[in-house]
């Protein structure tokens, strides 16, 4: 694993490896890792990761996600510690992670990876990066029937006051994982998910294939 690390970060990795023997000894966190800790208000144990990659071996996103930037839970933690902010915030990994928690179960150090991903997603939203796979509500046709609330497993949808229309559904892009269940149950086609909305599908069946 040490060979893969880029040359410019070796100064940090020496300290990182040096702490491996003393498990759970805190190392000095980078700015970004401190930011994550501060934003969550919890002790997330980012620095206690020693890079065993058990998390990556059970992560569905790492195995089947087909990500170009090759972000896995292990590299996510590594990049958070060394402060590769841009790489993490623009990665598709944080949006595809469903927070299933297998990585946390597998982690011998008990690093709360799903929580860290969730915090990074929030930070990404604050930096103005949009969730590429989120569901979007057309508030003008939403009939606030609440069908989407019952199928959303991440509790990303809430009913809010939408002006003259009364209650409307609203999707929190930081929590939406893009499974599309709400789009499927919406009888009014008020919720559309970006990669496969109803219009996109008609295009597709007309001949295009292999679209992501």
């Amino acid at each position, binding site marked *: 694993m040490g060979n893969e690390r880029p040359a410019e970060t070796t100064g940090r990795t020496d300290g990182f490896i040096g702490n491996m023997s003393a498990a759970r000894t805190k190392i000095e966190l980078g700015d970004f890792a401190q930011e994550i800790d501060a934003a969550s208000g919890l002790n997330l144990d980012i620095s206690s990761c020693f890079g065993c990659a058990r998390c990556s071996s059970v992560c569905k996103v790492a195995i*089947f*996600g*087909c990500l170009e930037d090759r972000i896995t839970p292990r590299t996510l933690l590594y990049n958070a510690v060394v402060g590769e902010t841009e790489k993490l915030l623009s990665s598709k990994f944080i949006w595809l992670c469903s927070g299933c928690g297998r990585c946390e179960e597998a982690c011998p150090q008990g690093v709360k990876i799903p929580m860290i991903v969730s915090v990074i997603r929030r930070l990404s939203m604050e930096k103005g990066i949009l969730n590429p796979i989120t569901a979007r509500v057309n508030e003008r046709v939403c009939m606030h029937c609440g069908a989407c609330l019952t*199928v959303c497993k991440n509790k990303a949808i809430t009913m809010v006051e939408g002006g003259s229309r009364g209650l409307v559904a609203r999707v929190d892009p930081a929590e939406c994982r893009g499974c599309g269940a709400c789009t499927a149950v919406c009888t009014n086609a008020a919720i559309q*998910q970006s990669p496969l909305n*109803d219009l996109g*599908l008609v295009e597709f*069946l007309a001949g295009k294939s*292999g679209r992501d």
Partner: protein
Amino acid sequence: MLRGADSFVPKVALFHCRWCLPESDAVKNLLPEHYESAVSTIKINCTARMEGELAIKAFGQGFDGVLVIGCEDGECHYESGNRQAFNRLGMLRRMLEFAGIYPERIGTIWVSPYDPASIKAQIGEYIEKLNGVGPF
């Protein structure tokens, strides 16, 4: 019958979940011979996205069958999306039957991504069945 029974190649809209079959190109390799051009593959994030409306639209576009491939029970990346799809498509089958359309046109396959041979066999079975049903 407009098309001869021997030359009939059913057009299939294949919806697959990205967590059990990540690559659309890899799906093409799992199809029986001569079916590569007759099958349109569509990658969805989870089979929970699959609704009756999509299947009906596919039939409206001239497809003979709709095949949905999703993860096995308990393996869904989104907790229970495949169960939702299972229930919804079962209901759609009953509705199609009621409307006088063969419910076999809607195929569902619940697979493990680690067993491509079984996926290939099940897709073959489905297409065989669709061959028997005939053109829409």
